[in-house]
């Protein structure tokens, strides 16, 4: 497995967009992990005298309406965004993985039931669904993670189910069954590694959606509670101060752009790298 990963990484790095994506993703993750070290100021430090300043040498991205350093808030915002993404996707993908494998490998009635469950869940437009859960459970980080995890389950569930169904009929699984391999062994050793590849790609393409959703809800004041800096709250702060000083709102959009472009480019490149048919892709 490690050699395979090495090979894939090499391919990604050879693709200019993939390389760019990788760099951007590293920046975002790095900001999230090392926020304490990189951040020039304390993001919660209020200094009303210096509110809504333009970018300067002291404050590279200016200050917000309470005088807090925008750059620091954005760096810590990366931690918030990545943290929520990791938790919610982690939970959602895990449950989705299990349900998907159950659906693909188990009896027909279970499959139909799970499909029905997936379809119903994804029949509700994202934001409306999130708003419904928030209205019941009340806004907050916990609710946010719960909502996003819930929404993610059908996404991952469907993918895993499709892979499982396809693999279930493939010959090497039949061979294993013929040799008397137990269900768990088949699932663990054979199905799982084959499912992981597309799963990773999906995660990479899903993170922009999750980050965007979290920011959207925080923008509405229904996500992360202040003073925790979320990119969404910073964006909203910028929006309200739009006419006074637009530099805040411009700055607020930057991390979102970087994160979404980065993960999308990386995901696309991974998808190309993992597709064996595209090995000799160089000629047009």
């Amino acid at each position, binding site marked *: 497995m490690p050699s395979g990963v090495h090979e894939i990484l090499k391919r990604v790095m050879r693709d200019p967009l993939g390389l760019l994506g990788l760099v951007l993703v590293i920046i975002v993750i790095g900001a999230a992990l090392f926020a304490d070290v990189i951040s020039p100021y304390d993001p919660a430090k209020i200094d009303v005298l210096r509110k809504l300043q333009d970018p300067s040498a002291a404050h590279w991205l200016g200050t917000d309406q309470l005088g807090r350093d925008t750059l620091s808030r954005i760096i810590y915002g990366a931690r918030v965004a990545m943290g929520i993404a990791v938790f919610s996707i982690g939970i959602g993908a895990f449950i989705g993985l299990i349900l998907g494998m159950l659906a693909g490998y188990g009896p027909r009635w279970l499959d139909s039931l799970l499909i029905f469950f997936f379809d119903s869940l*994804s029949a509700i437009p994202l934001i409306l669904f999130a708003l419904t859960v928030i209205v019941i459970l009340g806004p907050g980080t916990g609710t946010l993670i719960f909502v996003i995890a819930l929404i993610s389950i059908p996404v991952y569930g469907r993918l895993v189910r499709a892979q499982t169904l396809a693999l279930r009929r493939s010959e090497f699984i039949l061979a294993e069954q013929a040799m008397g391999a137990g269900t768990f062994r088949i699932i663990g050793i054979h199905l799982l590694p084959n499912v992981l590849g597309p799963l990773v790609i999906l995660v990479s393409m899903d993170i922009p959606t999750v980050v965007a959703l979290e920011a959207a809800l925080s923008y509405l004041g229904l996500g992360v509670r202040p003073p925790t800096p979320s990119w969404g709250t910073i964006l909203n702060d910028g929006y309200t101060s739009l006419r006074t000083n637009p530099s805040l709102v411009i700055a607020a*959009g930057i991390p979102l752009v970087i994160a979404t472009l980065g993960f999308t480019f990386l995901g696309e490149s991974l998808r190309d790298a993992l597709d064996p048919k595209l090995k000799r892709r160089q000629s047009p």
Partner: protein
Amino acid sequence: MLAYTIKRIGLGLLILIGVMFAMYAAVFIVPGNPARAALGPRATQEMIDRLTREMGLDQPYLVQVYNFFVNVLSGNLGLDVISNRPVATEIWEALPNTLILCVVGLGWATLLAIPLGCLAVLKRGTWIDRATSLLSVSVISLPYYVIAIYALLIFAVELNWLPAIGDGEPGDIGSQIRALILPAFAIGFTWVGYLARLVRASMLDVMGEPHIRTARAFGVPEWKIVTKYGLRIALIPTLSLLAVSLGGLISSAVFVEVIFSRPGIGKLVTAAVALRNYPVVMGAVLVMTAIYVTLTIAVDLLIARLDPRIRDAFRGT
């Protein structure tokens, strides 16, 4: 075709029922009185009592569910907790705005994307194609509301060409159109790239198929080959993926309405959420989900109409 239609509608109805059930059961997740949960910690006992009566919570469980379904199906979505007006009425008032925004937003994107996709196929391999490809990948992933806010900043605030807020003066179509431009642009922006890419990919697949060569061998004019023989097939997977993404369209319309302060479902629901006005939220979700499910069914039926192979796959079922 008929069997397929019935099956499709049946599935859709089942899903709607599932959603309705989930919506109703949702309030029961939180322990304690659901009415209290719906109204939040600052509710007065009087409000809780009223909502309890309205939600029929003092009745046996099965009766509640039955009443709920009967109510929804007859158009009674409950009362707005704050204003006491029927939720159905409020939604009915707000809905057209949202629908117009959705239609215009997706409409311009589609009208632009299809020729762009075809153009990319014709100029395959040239820098135009590669540039468009790159742009679409980048543009797809940008969150639409960032685009919306930047557009608002540039065109409404800095340049002052277009209004930043509202939906124009009633009766003045011109101002209404001007107010529609930025929001519709924001919604459609991410779609153009996505759709163009889809069209391009499908067209590439189709144009390489042998039957296109047959048509050419018989001297059928190229424009006819591209449209009748190529595009008609290529649009099928495009439509299919479009149907799935319609939910996202509704979501983005809702949020964009908030950003531009337009009246519509978005404003209605976000205000309701802030005030713990559960009946409004639930009613809006049900209505929008119903619309989404109906649209997906419609698209599925359209696809079956366009591709006889799909219809006939159901003959044996």
